[in-house]
């Protein structure tokens, strides 16, 4: 007989992402979120970190315990192996709720974790659960054109928290670090990363607080210099509308919208983009939207918070100059 289960805390388990040994901001966000649920449930937060950063940082946002996995085989992200690590940790902790973020990697592994734990999974969650029992959470559907309040009926629940949906909440926890050695088999590595092609000096759309995006109004790829300059001044990521990437003016990875990437930044600046419904669908969860367009009738103005009606080729260089001066003063 195994009495171990009796002593399990039923903690909330959270997978915290890191890159090159440092936690990403989303790691702190998911811990903040997990802490809110744990408080509701009267339990604790256990974080799982794979080759991650300094555990005490997770403590700042409410982690009570950090399971540290360090394994060279996990240097490259591998959905199956990572999902296995998280599922094993969830079982070891008797976790009833598992929280992941909404990065490409987290979305890749979440369904695998859910099936492994026989848990119901809800992605793109935008708020703390409305109730714990029954477990109901609000999440965005129809590419941010609506929200659904969804009930998860399984014993264990997997929640994918939308980016920037909850924010960071400081909340001291003990963050007791413990080594965790999951048992991984060769089967976990049937899928191998051969090479990674990633611009390390650029801010990604997924991580960016600010996104500078441009459309067909820019006329041609040769005019993107001023867009990249603005992104650099603001520490922003660059993005584009679909036709721009279809025509090969910009890489596919920059296409945002219903059929491209979702953007959940705090500021989205749209330059020479008309604001078609499919484009807007992808940026609805950005907080503040600025539009620069020479057509006052462009539909984007209806979805924007701030706008300038004018020629991008005049406005953008002026804006860049003033932003540079502003940054020089305010940094």
């Amino acid at each position: 007989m195994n009495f171990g289960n009796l002593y399990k805390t039923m903690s909330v388990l959270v997978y915290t992402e890191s890159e090159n040994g440092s936690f990403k901001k989303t790691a702190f966000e998911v811990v903040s979120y997990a802490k809110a649920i744990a408080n509701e449930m009267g339990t604790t937060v256990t974080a799982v970190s794979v080759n991650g950063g300094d555990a005490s940082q997770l403590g700042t946002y409410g982690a009570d315990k950090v399971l540290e996995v360090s394994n060279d085989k996990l240097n490259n992200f591998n959905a199956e192996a990572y999902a296995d690590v998280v599922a094993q940790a969830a079982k070891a902790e008797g976790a009833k709720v598992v929280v992941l973020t909404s990065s490409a990697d987290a979305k890749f592994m979440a369904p695998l974790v859910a099936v492994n734990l026989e848990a119901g999974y809800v992605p793109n969650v935008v708020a703390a659960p409305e109730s714990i029992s029954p477990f109901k959470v609000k999440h965005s559907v129809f590419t941010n054109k609506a929200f659904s309040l969804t009930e998860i009926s399984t014993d264990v629940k997997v929640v994918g928290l939308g980016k920037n949906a909850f924010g960071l909440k400081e909340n001291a926890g003990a963050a007791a670090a413990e080594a965790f050695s999951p048992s991984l088999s060769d089967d976990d590595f049937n899928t191998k990363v051969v090479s990674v092609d990633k611009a390390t000096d650029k801010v990604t759309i997924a991580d960016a607080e600010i996104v500078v995006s441009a459309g067909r109004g820019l006329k041609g790829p040769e005019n993107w210099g001023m867009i990249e300059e603005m992104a650099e001044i603001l520490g922003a990521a660059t993005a584009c509308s679909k036709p721009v990437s279809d025509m090969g003016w910009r890489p596919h990875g920059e296409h945002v919208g219903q059929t491209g990437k979702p953007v959940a930044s705090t500021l989205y600046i749209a330059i020479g983009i008309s604001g078609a419904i499919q484009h807007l669908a992808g940026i609805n969860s950005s907080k503040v939207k600025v539009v620069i367009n020479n057509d006052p009738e462009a539909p984007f103005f209806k979805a924007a918070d701030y706008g300038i009606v004018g020629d991008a080729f005049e406005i953008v260089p002026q804006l860049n100059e003033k932003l540079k001066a502003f940054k020089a003063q305010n940094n």
Partner: protein
Amino acid sequence: MKILVCISHVPDTTSKINFTDGDTAFDTNGVNFVINPNDEFGLTRAMWFKEKQGASVHVVNVGGPETEPTLRKALAIGADEAIRVNTPATDGYAVAKQLAAVVKDGGYDLVIGGRESIDYNGGMVPGMLAKMLDANFVNTCISLEVADSNVTAIREIDGGKETISTSLPLVVGGQKGLVEESDLRIPNMRGIMQARSKPLTVREPVDANSETKTVSFEKPAPKGAVKLVDNVDDLINLLHNEAKVI
């Protein structure tokens, strides 16, 4: 190679989103349904495998009779056979369970689905299916090559892409990039005529429970009017002092 393409039947991208029955159901009134765009890229890539490598291509949907026109369209694009699992798609888990039964019975080597359906944005069916089948899985796939049972795939990651080597049996969550926009095929008259006589099998569901259910839907609060400014100084000032985002 036997390929199964999973087709989600979704409102087209211009649809107005409204709800009925006390905000518990999607209002399909006046909505035009299409093949989920991510699945259309996958289907078109499957046609390439058919034409270049002699693969057979079946398409499947889990849903009621109303999805058959969408499956016929997939046949008109060139799929050989269609299967409809006759049960409403209640949640991602239940759909994956149905698909797992179809894959096991049909002995497919490669299953191509989409990164996500553009309606519920679950992004979960292919991953769950792969796990249920114990098959390999590549999500956000933007390039796929198969030689014997060896697979080379490229996956979009945040800020770039990575090349992956794996093997069949494989489930793919595909998107634009698997083929280009310009490679998509609009069914021609001949395709449409042929589609009428291709098999569309209706299959009864296996037992599968749902794990989640919608309690209610809600639309975002309407937003206030845009503030227009006529110079960049005002814009910077507002972004800094009012919106507090720079």
